[in-house]
């Protein structure tokens, strides 16, 4: 949950987009552009996803 971009070797913007697309498809949610920009770590994505599913 604490994992950040810097923690993953070779992480780049393409990986990030793929990751966001994967979460959006899996949970049928759509993140706000501003949120995508500001997610600090995996935990933030989980929190936002849970909020949208609620």
């Amino acid at each position, binding site marked *: 949950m604490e994992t950040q971009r810097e923690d993953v070797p070779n992480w780049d*913007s*393409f990986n990030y*987009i793929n990751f*966001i*697309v994967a979460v959006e*498809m899996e949970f049928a949610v759509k993140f706000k552009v501003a949120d995508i920009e500001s997610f600090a770590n995996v935990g933030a994505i989980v929190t936002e996803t849970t909020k949208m599913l609620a």
Partner: protein
Amino acid sequence: MTSWLPIAVDFRGDLRAALDRPGPTERLESLASLATYRLGFLETVQLDRTLGNLTLKEAPGFPAIRLALLASSTVDHLPPAIRIAGLRRKLLIEVHRGAYGQYRQELLDPRSSLHQFAPQVVLFSLTAREAIAGVPLTATAAEVDEAIARFVGDLRSLWRKAREIGNAAIIQQTFLDVSEPVFGGYDRIVPGAPARIIMRLNDQLCEAAARDDVLLLDVARASARDGIDAWFDVGRWLQGKLEIAPQAAPLYGDLVARILAAQRGLSKKCLVLDLDNTLWGGVIGDDGLDGIVLGEGSAAGEAHLALQHYAKQLKERGVILAVCSKNDAKIAEAAFRDHPEMVLGRSDISAFQANWDDKAHNLKAIAARLNIGIDSLVFVDDNPVERARVRQSLPMVAVPELPEDPAQYVRCLAEAGYFEAVAFTAEDRDRAQQYAANAEREALLGSAESMDDFLRGLNMSLLFGPFTEVDHARVVQLINKTNQFNTTTRRYAGEEIAHIAAQPDALTLQFRLLDRVGDNGLVSVMILRPTPDDEDVLEIENWVMSCRVFGRQLEFEAMNIAVDAARERGARALVADYIATAKNDVIRTLYPSLGFTEVKQPSPANGATRWLLDLASYVERDTHIVVREQQNDRPRDSVQIHPHSSRSVARRLDHIDDGNPA
């Protein structure tokens, strides 16, 4: 969006299984078959990563293509989809992706990585934003046209630059309209409205592409079908300047790969149609001619009609049509002849397989009859069980996953893009005619009372002569391509044929069959030479015949001619080997049927039997073929009635006179 592909039941499991295969080639084959399933964006990326790990730049049966993708938006997500769609067609596509927005510099700099990559194909993926940017909403029509002309002119110089790199083929993506209405419906009227500019831009682009021989990747058309939301996601644009939405990537890749395949002649050639509940509603064997659902007046009937109309259009552009149906042939053919609502006539169908055999077997028969590869067939069948069975036993046949509702059949077939074209030539237009000629022969056969009737009605004539120089290329092609009617499967190079033809003791014969429907061309070749130990015995070194003319009595007439020619040389016997192969079983009894007797050999070579014909006892066979000898020293059209043939003509006339054909 790639709904014609079947759904993968267990993608992850199949992917693991593919990786467990022993060698890299086997793994590649497994990944290629996995690529024929409907895959989403993420699965495509995953499969592509696995493909990349194989690090194969080439593999037998998988031609490699180098494609450069030059874009004015982020396209990092597109190469995986392009590679996987290539894999679906057994193409290994290597993609060079230019640095973001750097394509101009890359094109101009001969030391750039683009130049080093040496692409065979360059794909321009540009957004309309650059074109619209400088044009105010208040621009006049003339100003807009000028701006568009300038933009398209610039594009054409980019194409020229790209083409200078090793004569690369150019593909230009059409412009996606992601604009929002400013005036509403009135947008189309205001010259400076974005929607109108893009419309004009695409128009001008198409004209320029036609002039410059550039192919189009028509995402504009695709997005008009799927809806712009399926292609463009404003969030992704803002987040990473992606103009093509990730979920559209698999279809984008397929659109690219089908053009690349078409350039290499790998588009499908033949549409094979099932009948019951596909070409019409209901089961004709049960429901009868007037019970099937077809034609105006019922929605379902019109849906099936629409499929027929679509097939007819495909036929007009050179796609061959065939039928493969579990049906009684007579009943099935009657529908084509007698049902008033049928759009497709029997003569539109070049190969008609209606019987109770396995469909995979019939598809093979269709490919053989049409002389095309099984991998150039598309098989359309409403029955999921039949589809699955064909996919399993003939994975090279394209089998669209037809939706349940016949109303959607045409859309599904069209979306699959099996018949993607990169040209429309005179040859394409003639192809329909050429195959129609064959179909006409088939129809004659269908209406004839007997086989004999049919053959007589064909008005066949045979031209024959020794090999002449103009024939050499075709002779070599026929010998080396023919697998079925090929007595010894000896293959020859071009010079060898020229050498044999020049030898005075060699007897070469080439046969050209014409009939009332058309010229079948040079369809059979025979090479005879004296045996080493007895020069009065001629050996048939090889004899081949095109499968297009099987069952026309040509083998009988050819032997009559060979015997005549051998007698003229003072020969007293013919000998011939039949060397059995996996493919020439069809002529296993050829020589005995012509009056040859087997020569027992002490130690026969593997699969070979040897046959002897005593010329003194040869009984000439009657056929329905008129024979004319082609003169060696005269042009092809100049022919002379051969003494032998006048005999057979006279004999045939006798038969007709006494009403008792042989």
